[in-house]
């Protein structure tokens, strides 16, 4: 793996390899000194054109636990304000000698564009591009389900809320179905993409009807700015029909999980009490996010690691017993 740009470009084997690695890095986080020298001397730069707190902190923590050095390119107080183009910004950062660029941008496709400008030495990680993809979120979400339930095979996962504007939903749908789960999108028609052609999903507008069949209820954040676009009549109406309240949680099976990518609007898409139930693994998602991003950074920057996937060049030795 050279870059991590999207879930769509990965295979089931790739995702499972990341999960397996994540097990090892989760153990590192539990040590009394949770730091390993694996990426000593590597330099990672955060290039965030959109606000982000948890994703950036999570990446930062992951890089530091691997002993990589990090730099932040803060768009608000930089040459971007003076009118520098994206290409010039990226080439400038590259010339300083970085090993990876973790990018978030409001426009879909920016990570691909950046990857084509860079030479082969530099890896690009997509930390969210427009409404398109957020691959590390899908890797940590699927890891969390796997950790709780052993496997995603045969699971029924409902993604509830603003699918239309959600890069998390797009990446999650791809990852979940690749790993053998069945996905149902649950939202009012105004919050679904104009076309779902080619999406391997079912669609429902009735949360109450679907809840009893779910293994995972994955709630998306109801963004306040959608109100001004008149996509839902009011937040109260949204909560009444699609909010996961204590009453609705009773309809879930006993072993069903509640997940949320954060930040939560308690009282809108999820009630305050539900967010704190034992079945809510929202904090586990955050914890697994660090280990997942360690695995991703290690796979990309611990060069040579990808060759392990290709075992053709490993020869089988002919063994003979040692005398004595």
């Amino acid at each position: 793996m050279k870059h991590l740009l999207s879930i769509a470009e990965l295979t089931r084997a790739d995702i499972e390899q990341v999960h397996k690695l994540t097990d090892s890095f989760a153990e590192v986080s539990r040590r009394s000194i949770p730091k390993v020298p694996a990426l000593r001397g590597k330099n990672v730069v955060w290039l965030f054109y959109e606000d982000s707190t948890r994703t950036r902190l999570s990446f930062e923590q992951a890089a530091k636990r691997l002993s990589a050095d990090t730099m932040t390119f803060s768009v608000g107080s930089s040459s971007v304000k003076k009118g520098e183009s994206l290409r010039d910004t990226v080439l400038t950062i590259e010339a300083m000698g970085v090993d990876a660029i973790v990018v978030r941008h409001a426009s879909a496709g920016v990570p691909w564009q950046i990857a084509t400008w860079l030479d082969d030495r530099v890896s690009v990680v997509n930390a969210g591009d427009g409404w398109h993809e957020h691959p590390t979120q899908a890797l940590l979400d699927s890891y969390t389900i796997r950790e709780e339930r052993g496997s995603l095979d045969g699971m029924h996962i409902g993604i509830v809320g603003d699918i239309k504007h959600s890069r998390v939903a797009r990446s999650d749908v791809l990852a979940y179905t690749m790993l053998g789960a069945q996905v149902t999108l649950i939202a009012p028609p105004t919050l679904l993409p104009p076309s779902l052609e080619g999406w391997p999903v079912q669609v429902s507008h009735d949360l109450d009807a679907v809840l009893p069949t779910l293994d995972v209820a994955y709630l998306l954040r109801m963004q306040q700015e959608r109100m001004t676009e008149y996509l839902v009549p009011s937040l109260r109406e949204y909560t009444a029909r699609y909010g996961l309240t204590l009453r609705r949680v009773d309809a879930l099976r006993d072993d069903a999980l509640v997940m949320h990518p954060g930040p939560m609007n308690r009282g809108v898409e999820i009630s305050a009490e539900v967010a704190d139930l034992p079945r809510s693994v929202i904090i586990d998602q955050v914890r697994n996010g660090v280990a997942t991003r360690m695995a991703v950074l290690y796979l990309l920057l611990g060069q040579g690691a990808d060759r392990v996937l290709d075992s053709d060049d490993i020869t089988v030795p002919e063994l003979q017993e040692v005398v004595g």
Partner: protein
Amino acid sequence: MDADDVRRAIWRMAHEIIERNHGLDGIVLVGLQTGGVGLADAFADALAEIDGTTSPVGTLDVAMFRDDIGIRPVLPEAVTDIPVDLDGAMVVLVDDVLFTGRTIRAALDALNSYGRPRSVQLAVMIDRGHRELPIRPDYVGKNLPTRRDEMVNVSPQGVDLGELVKS
């Protein structure tokens, strides 16, 4: 070496561990992933049989502490599991084959993350030479002169020596 030879070597080294440490007080066996894990369990069984006390056994994956990350494929093989605090412990690192010594160097670094052992000793089934670092074993099953391009395979069924076959 056949299965009996391996068993006898484990038995002898277990006695040496007890002799050197005047008992098993504070001893923690740590098997290196993946070849040392089974051996560490075998040592624990032998020690328990000889001395009547059970020693804690852990496993250690040193992939993230290796100095050849970026030079060759280095992926963790399994999750590290150290069940006890290593502060003040007498750690016996267990591996199947001692070769360049780089794995052991990485293991010494990795152990630091779990505490400060009072001492660290090294037990290996096979010492095949070709050291690249100033590291020596405390307990050896068998010294086995090898060429660099040979392979050594250790299992409970015995020890095998082979050559890499160019396909």
